[in-house]
């Protein structure tokens, strides 16, 4: 049975990325859909196997915390790409740039004059209870005023087809290496498709990343020494850390490889002796960066690193404290933040959010838990969430208590009808829910947004959880130029 798109279960309850329920394949996806339909089952299976083999051979893995002995798992990948028309993506890209620009202004303001609080746009009590505000960073001025150099914002599409920002990851967002590897695998599996379609390339990300990082160097002029700082092999994103270091041609270091000298500069230990480090792309959380400034029990960090950074002797990306804007309560204020700093309306909307700290909102949330998704302010990876419609009464009851105890820590959003995209499931094409994580680089010569991003897919039927740590997979994402199609 080859694929017959008229049998594909696109419905009106969800927006499907490739197939319109009434008219079949969307214009940007037509070539792909026709091509897939021209393949026999055996050919399709062959492509799938080839992709799986590639992933194994290329060693694309991610790590799961709970598995002791063999900690690497092959990256789950679906061969059917997700497609976004170029014109639509251009608008999303502009919206992301606007958003990250405003967020960086916001962070910089919080660590300096706090004008936005004085002007009563952002409540002081939210900041006072922020888990990610770092008093140690007050008064520091990173180069170009940029704190969140690398941002991963999650985009979703609702039933009406509109794109929303679901959250902004400003601490140590991960996933970009999978975006790059997915493209590589897809090119190997479907080379024909790239020959006659205008699929925008994604490969220059690591070059852009390096340029951005290099531009942060406190010693401009010569070749700056850039390193990637990893917590080590047991981190779930270790593959990505080593991948990015390799692609940029820089050292992958651990905390124990670095030291801060009496001159407050950072050095790495090499076989030639100590070598000065200018820029650190750190993939370690704030609190573990420097046992002197933050958690004294951190074995991952570097003593004195914050001091060196405050003195301007080393650049850290992202800057410590940038996570203050990576908070689901702050998220709810982003439209106001954009308005306040840029005097613009947001180009991409937020998902409507109820702040449990507001009495009126809280009343609504507690009364409608079965319809809402409740999220803690500072968790990532899909942990600590309540998906109301799928939760048991006991789980909902537990959340009532949690919210009452610590309202500041919770927001709620309506359950979105996350869009779907055709996914190969046991030889059949079935709709599965997807989201999209583009990456935005700021602080370099120009703000850069990846072409598309990482499409994550909930491989389990009906599931809305796309996190790889919880059974999600991913797809290649094509931005296709439909001009003239």
């Amino acid at each position, binding site marked *: 049975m080859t694929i017959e798109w008229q049998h594909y279960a696109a419905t009106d309850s969800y927006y499907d990325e490739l197939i319109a329920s009434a008219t079949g394949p969307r214009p940007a996806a037509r070539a792909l859909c026709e091509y897939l339909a021209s393949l026999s089952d055996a050919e399709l299976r062959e492509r799938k196997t080839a992709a799986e083999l590639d992933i194994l051979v290329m060693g694309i893995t991610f790590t799961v915390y709970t598995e002791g002995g063999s900690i690497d798992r092959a990256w789950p990948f679906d061969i059917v790409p997700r497609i976004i028309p170029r014109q639509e993506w251009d608008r999303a890209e502009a919206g992301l740039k606007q958003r990250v620009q405003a967020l960086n202004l916001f962070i910089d303001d919080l660590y300096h004059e706090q004008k936005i609080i004085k002007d009563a746009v952002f409540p002081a009590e939210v900041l006072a209870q922020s888990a990610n505000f770092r008093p140690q960073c007050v008064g520091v001025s990173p180069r170009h005023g940029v704190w969140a150099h690398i941002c991963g914002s999650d985009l979703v599409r609702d039933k009406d087809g509109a794109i929303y920002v679901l959250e902004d990851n400003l601490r140590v967002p991960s996933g970009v290496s999978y975006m790059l590897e997915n493209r590589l695998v897809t090119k190997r599996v479907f080379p024909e498709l790239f020959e006659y379609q205008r699929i925008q390339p994604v490969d220059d990300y690591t070059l852009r990343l390096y340029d951005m990082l290099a531009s942060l160097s406190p010693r401009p002029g010569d070749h700056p020494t850039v390193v990637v700082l990893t917590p080590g092999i047991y981190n779930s994103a270790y593959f990505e850390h080593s991948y990015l270091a390799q692609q940029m041609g820089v050292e992958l270091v651990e905390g124990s490889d670095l030291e801060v000298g009496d001159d407050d500069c950072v050095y790495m230990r090499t*076989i030639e002796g100590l070598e000065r480090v200018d820029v650190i792309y750190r993939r370690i959380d704030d609190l573990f960066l420097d046992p002197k400034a933050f958690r004294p029990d951190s074995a991952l960090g570097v003593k004195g690193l914050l001091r060196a950074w405050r003195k301007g002797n080393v650049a850290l990306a992202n800057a410590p404290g940038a996570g203050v804007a990576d908070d689901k309560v702050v998220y709810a204020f982003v439209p106001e933040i954009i308005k306040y700093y840029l005097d613009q309306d947001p180009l991409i909307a937020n998902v409507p959010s109820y702040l449990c700290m507001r009495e009126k909102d809280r009343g609504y949330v507690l009364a409608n838990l079965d319809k809402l998704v409740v999220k803690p302010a500072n968790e990532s990876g899909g942990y600590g969430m309540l998906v109301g419609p799928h939760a048991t009464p006991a789980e909902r009851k537990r959340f009532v208590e949690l919210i009452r105890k610590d309202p500041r820590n919770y927001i709620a959003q309506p359950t979105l009808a996350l869009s779907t995209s055709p996914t190969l499931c046991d030889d059949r094409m079935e709709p599965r829910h997807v989201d999209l994580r583009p990456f935005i680089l700021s602080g370099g010569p120009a703000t850069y947004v990846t072409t598309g991003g990482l499409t994550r897919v909930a491989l389990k039927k009906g599931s809305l959880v796309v996190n790889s740590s919880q059974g999600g997979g991913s797809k290649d994402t094509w931005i296709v130029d439909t001009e003239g199609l």
Partner: protein
Amino acid sequence: MLSRVAQNIYWMTRYVERAEDTARLINVNTNLLLDLPRTTTFGWLPLIFIVGAESQFFEKDPHRLVDEANVVRFLINDRDHPGSIISSLAAARENLRTTRDTVPREAWEQINGLYIYARDHVPSRRGRYEFLRRVILGAQQIGGLLAGAMSRTAAYDFVRLGHYLERADMTTRILDVRSANLLSHARQTQQSQGQSQMQTQTPASTQEEQDPFESIQWMSVLKSLSAYQMYRQQVRVRVSGPDVLKFLLQDEYFPRAVAFCLRQLDICLRKLPRHDAALAALAALRQKLNAATVPELSREGLHDFIDEVQIGLSQLHDQIAAAYFAH
């Protein structure tokens, strides 16, 4: 190059070589014991001393039975013994895991595969030879993969430093087996003197009694080091103790001979920065090795001499570690 990465690579190859050479060590002792008359053999205890693990072996039970099964198990799959084959492979794997981006992927897969093989196979007495053969071959494959796919930059120098330093050390230990078994009549070994080495005397009479077996035993040593053919081609005389010792200690051409290993270490070190102290330690060791009069050693003092060589190697390691691994 990062010190940590250099250190990991160095230890990774040391551990792989140690696993291989421990397998060779067990093979040589097995063969020796088969060749010797039962009453004259010293058995398996010398191996424990030779790998310097008497305190670990007797740690839990000072009266632990020193028989073939216990010693072989201790050397092959005792996780509490850091020098066992399984511990060495696990350590090699851990060292490589953190530096996977520096070495070719196939080498990682090979080490991982070899570790899993050793973990999942506890050899019976009958299956032991095959098991050890696979460990030796697997280790050789890793060396081949690294040699065939790594650029000759500093990283590869550390591959070779670890490789040859460990090999030199283990070749001397394998020679020690011979001396220990030869001295089988001098029985008492002082067991528990910390990291102590075997303290034995060599009555001349013992030697003569062993003579009928001597060349067979030396052949066995050569074979365990894959050295028999090369020895025959290069030395061309009948297999005798002094000649074999000279070959395995002082030959500059055979790749498991100590002198060869030291020469390779010299070549690697010269390519690296900050090598003065390590080169000095190496030069002293090479001089000691070359100055040894082997025919005399084969009669008396071999064990002490080997001890000195091992101390020299350990000092060389300290110099390498001080220059490159720790600041």
